[in-house]
């Protein structure tokens, strides 16, 4: 399978800080890839480098097989982008935004565009500046899809949308995905959205890609182990795949990646009075993986934490 997006050692510094650090990202053609990360983890900078808005300090990026640094307009026309916050020229009406956008593309699907506008009940005469955030997102989606792109890059497209609009937006996105051969890369803070649509995820932590695997694999490989002790839990020995661990009273909680019998044996060796292994949903898994050593304020229970962080 060819890659719709491929980066090699992609790096960007702002000042002395590497906001994206040696990123090797591959998005197979036809896949839906969810790019996750906390605020400031480098998602938007990565996307802007892919689209040529930001120049990398090191490394390379290829879209649809062509180097981004020398991307021809003909190839660029096969890539659609929905920017965070859905920027528009706000003086335009929806019809003017359509006319403006259509002028840049040889391929343009008026029928699909009208279907999407009708579905969302968006009048073409409406001024963009009078539309709600959700309606602007819908116009963005319609304009992105109308040129029939092979690759869609969406930067946190559901940010700021209410639950109903977000669901509508995602349902439409799923229908668009079902069109043959289309590749989608989208970043999001809303894990449930990613879980719904992405078949592969990447997690950026401080600009580095720490996870890159199928969504189901990520969910299945992370477990929370909760062990109860009669007294204070003993010190935890070194352990492969340990994402974090912390103590609350006589309880020891571990989050491990690549869960297996070795983790069970490790916990049994500590001689707990009981222990259980819990599955994590994607949101919990993501939080455990990216939260770092800081946890919620221990106002109600004294926490004795000693987090450790590892890579997959």
């Amino acid at each position, binding site marked *: 399978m060819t890659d719709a997006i491929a980066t090699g050692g992609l790096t960007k510094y702002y000042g002395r800080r590497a906001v994206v650090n040696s990123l090797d990202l591959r998005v197979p053609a036809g896949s839906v890839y969810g790019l996750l990360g906390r605020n400031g983890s480098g998602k938007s900078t990565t996307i802007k480098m892919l689209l040529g*808005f930001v120049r990398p300090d090191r490394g390379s990026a290829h879209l649809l097989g062509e180097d981004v640094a020398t991307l021809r307009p003909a190839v660029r026309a096969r890539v659609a982008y929905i*920017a965070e*916050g859905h920027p528009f*020229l706000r003086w335009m009406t929806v019809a003017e935004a359509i006319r403006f956008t259509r002028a840049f593309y040889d391929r343009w699907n008026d029928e699909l565009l009208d279907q999407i506008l009708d579905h969302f009940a968006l009048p073409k005469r409406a001024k963009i500046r009078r539309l709600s955030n959700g309606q602007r997102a819908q116009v963005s989606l319609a304009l992105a899809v109308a040129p029939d792109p092979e690759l869609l890059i969406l930067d946190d497209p559901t940010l700021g949308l209410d639950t109903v609009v977000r669901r509508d937006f995602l349902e439409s996105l799923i229908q668009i995905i079902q069109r043959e051969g289309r590749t989608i890369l989208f970043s999001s803070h809303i894990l449930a959205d990613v879980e719904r649509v992405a078949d592969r995820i990447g997690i950026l932590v401080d600009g580095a890609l720490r996870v890159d695997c199928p969504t189901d694999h990520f969910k299945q490989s992370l477990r929370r182990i909760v062990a109860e002790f009669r007294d204070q839990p003993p010190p935890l020995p070194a352990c492969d795949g340990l994402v974090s661990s912390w103590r609350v009273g006589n309880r020891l909680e571990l989050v491990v990646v690549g869960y297996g019998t070795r983790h069970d044996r490790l916990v049994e060796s500590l001689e707990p009075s009981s222990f259980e292994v819990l599955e994590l949903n994607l949101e919990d898994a993501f939080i455990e993986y990216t939260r770092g050593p800081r946890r919620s304020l221990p106002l109600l229970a004294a926490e004795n934490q000693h987090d450790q962080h590892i890579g997959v």
Partner: protein
Amino acid sequence: MTSTLAYKELRENVWIAALGLAAMLLVALGAMGYAPLPGILGTARQPGQIPFTSDGFSYQFGLVACGLALALGFRQSLGDFLGDAQLFVLQRPVNRGRVYGTKLVVGLTMYLVCGALPIALYAAWAATPGTHASPFAWSMTGGAWTAWLAMTAVYLGALLSGIRPAAWLGTRLAPLAAAGLLAGLLALPLPWLAGWLVFAVGDALLVATIVWVVLTRDFA
């Protein structure tokens, strides 16, 4: 697609050009003896004043043209950064050079046309026999045309200051300061051809810098 980009620039900035043109026409009308807003824009023509030579037209025109050049330059550059609007344009399959080249050509054309009309109107009035009791030769309009050309540097400096990323306001305004110094050469008694040459070279340097900034800067 260039015509689409040009329409966008016209649509966004025509009101500034219209205001500038109206202000410069008031200055020209004042010089012709029809000052609708005396004391605000344009002064009523005094008897014995010689058009373009002893009526202060070039100075007043230069001030208003400077205002128009600043407004156009900053509106065209900073306006696109409000709400990340530039991403709506830059994501299209067109290179940055064409986007900003169109912006520059449209902005400069708007300034040049709006500036040229009042000078041409006043010159046509001055060249019409019976309108004033003083001699007139077309070469007398040289000072006004030089002021008109000098303010192109202010437009380019404002555009460059708006486009160029810089953390500190003083650094950001450096191109405008340089353009202001260039336009300040108006005060020197240069022969008009030498003046035009200086402004043409200065403008070419500013345009080259704009192209370099546009092609190399990040739009984060």
